[in-house]
């Protein structure tokens, strides 16, 4: 309950209709920008926690199934190309960097740099998806598909747990891929608004929040990469 001061801290003069340079983006039910910014940050972090728990459920399921069938999972992970995984990790880390630079330049009202960094971030995301496409295409070709579509014949460890591994592989990377797509559309929306000049040092909340979301997507990949690609 540390957050006690809340809205009352700063402002003494209150009430209706007291205009003193309100930004056009201040919504009617907030007293001033600081309160609106904090509220949106709380909302965003709560949303990020729900994402962490959503992916967390998958990670826990994967961890338990790996605990039950370690040899089958170790055997199955050889089909994954760790070099492509590492490349994707680097691509996402760079995109995180460019995203945070975008937020930084937005806070400095540097519109050109903001637009440049957002475009680079979008490009990195696109590269990530292209690499992902190659990985999937290779798996589909070999028949390493989830559940009942698993037609790969060369399993050494009996019992068919490789299919479970690939079920988890496709669910985790698939859900993550969907979140990347979601992230790209949202960055596109922020880019459109940046070009329209909506953001300056006193109001760049959307850029900040989209940045938080993008870093979370990168965070999930940081955990996905070692757990899926580098089982030893």
């Amino acid at each position, binding site marked *: 309950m*540390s957050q006690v001061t809340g809205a009352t801290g700063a402002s003494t003069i209150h009430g209706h209709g007291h205009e003193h340079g309100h930004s056009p983006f201040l919504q009617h039910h907030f007293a001033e920008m600081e309160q609106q910014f904090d509220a949106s940050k709380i909302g965003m972090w709560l949303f990020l*926690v729900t994402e962490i728990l959503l992916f967390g459920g998958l990670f*826990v399921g994967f961890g*338990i199934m790996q605990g039950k069938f370690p040899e089958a999972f170790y055997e199955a992970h050889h089909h994954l190309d760790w070099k492509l995984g590492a490349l994707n990790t680097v691509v996402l880390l760079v995109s995180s960097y460019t995203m945070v630079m975008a937020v930084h330049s937005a*806070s400095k009202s540097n519109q050109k740099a903001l637009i440049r960094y957002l475009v680079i971030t979008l490009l990195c995301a696109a590269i990530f998806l292209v690499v992902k496409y190659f990985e999937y295409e290779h798996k589909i070709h070999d028949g390493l598909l989830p559940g009942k579509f698993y037609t790969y014949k060369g399993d050494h460890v009996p019992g068919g*747990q490789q299919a479970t591994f690939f079920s988890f592989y496709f669910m985790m990377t698939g859900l993550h891929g969907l979140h990347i797509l979601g992230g790209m559309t949202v960055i596109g929306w922020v880019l459109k608004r940046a070009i329209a000049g909506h953001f300056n*040092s*006193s109001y760049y909340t959307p850029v900040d929040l989209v940045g938080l979301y993008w*870093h979370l997507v990168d965070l999930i990949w940081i955990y996905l990469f070692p*757990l899926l690609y580098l089982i030893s």
Partner: protein
Amino acid sequence: MSDHSTTAHHHPPAKLYAGVLAALLFLTVITVAASRVDFGSSSINVVIALAIATCKASLVILYFMHLRYDKPLNSLILLTGVLFLGVLLAFCLIDIDSRFPSRPSNLKVPIAAGAAAAGAGAAPGTAPAAGAPAAGTPAPAAAPSGGTQPAAAPTPSH
């Protein structure tokens, strides 16, 4: 009325972000290297891989997501979320790992989906369960069904 321009949100210098990126890339190299080395049992390997990933994650959270410069409530929210994810993992593991798969001493007919009540010595005549293929199922009876094998104790599933 406090001036609500950028001083309200402290922003570190741009060079710090470049340093953090370099650290992250370096840690990625370490992750790949660590996976090459076998640190004894597979669980230790997983713990080390997770430790490195957590370092990278905390770098991203603290600097890229500004959690270090933000109001403490946001970190409290994140910590609560991660804590309850840990609760889910811990309590599931308490149950699933501490469950010993009990085996009957007099088991003659392995419990496989296909091998319901095969007759003693009579024709194999396996009557597979509704709809399930008669193929040998993995858990727990890896042994083929039917027949008079001596106590075909199934390999434990875990």
